[in-house]
């Protein structure tokens, strides 16, 4: 059971290098053969650099550890569901960028659920800035802790 006191808890900043091979791998994984991810010259001409897929910031998983996570506010991780995900973009992100991410627990709240009884929600927000110090994106994950183990 998470409580409101977890709100505002912040992880240590982490670095994330935006690597072309990872972008290509990710584009293939989401079945997007758009040449803009695969042809550097074309990408430069079209959008000023090799861009990243919309949900690419999920790969921050390769750059984070326990210290960069703000934790799960006491959630029982065996009962966590990923309920919702949101990305906001303020500036382009390109291959070759070095991003700095800072994650915090933005909100904790409760709702009555259907299948799993009472559900607690935790919103984890990660802000990304680039190597020029520009804020480029915010990623917001809403995690749900169900009142009992989730049934298949």
């Amino acid at each position, binding site marked *: 059971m998470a409580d409101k006191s977890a709100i505002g808890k912040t992880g240590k900043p982490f670095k994330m290098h935006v690597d072309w091979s*990872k972008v290509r*791998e*990710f584009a*293939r*994984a*989401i*079945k*997007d053969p*758009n*040449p*803009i*991810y695969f042809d550097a010259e*074309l990408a430069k001409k*079209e*959008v000023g650099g090799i*861009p990243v*897929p*919309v*949900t690419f910031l*999920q*790969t921050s*998983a*390769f750059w984070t550890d326990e210290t960069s996570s703000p934790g799960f506010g006491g959630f029982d991780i065996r009962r966590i*569901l*990923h*309920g*919702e*995900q*949101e*990305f*906001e*973009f303020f500036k*382009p992100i390109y291959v070759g960028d070095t991003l700095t991410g800072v994650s915090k627990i933005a909100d904790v709240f409760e709702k009555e659920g259907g299948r799993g009884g009472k559900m607690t929600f935790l919103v984890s927000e990660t802000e990304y800035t680039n190597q020029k110090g520009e804020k480029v994106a915010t990623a917001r994950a809403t995690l749900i802790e169900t009142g009992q183990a989730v*049934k*298949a």
Partner: protein
Amino acid sequence: MAAKLKFDSVKVGDEIPKLVIQGVTRPDFVRYAGASGDFVPLHYDQTFVEAAGIPTVFAQGMFTAGLLSKAVTDYVGIGNVRRFQVRFATRVWPGDVVTCTGKVTGKVEKDGEKQIEGDLIVLNQKGEPAIRGSFRAACA
């Protein structure tokens, strides 16, 4: 590829061209696990899921969200998405036919740009929503 939509030519109610994936596969989930770093075994480990009482592995929600994001960038052009949001509903299983689509719900001026907003949905072959979402994107 990356060309922006012309703001004046977009109307509220316009549909995002349907993106249909004819049967997602276990290798798709494995590939997404490697690409994303999401190694939750529910998505590739048959032994693990059976022990948990689940008949078989199912897609990472963010794999399906990735397919949906392609439907959006195919429509608005890569580099023009300003906001993308997904809420997960029913699970996507191996063999499911996944249809990604959406609709323009609004036209706004924001941050000095002409932008459109819309609702998104991913349906399985039974017409059940796997994801409901929304987006905002820059236009020319």
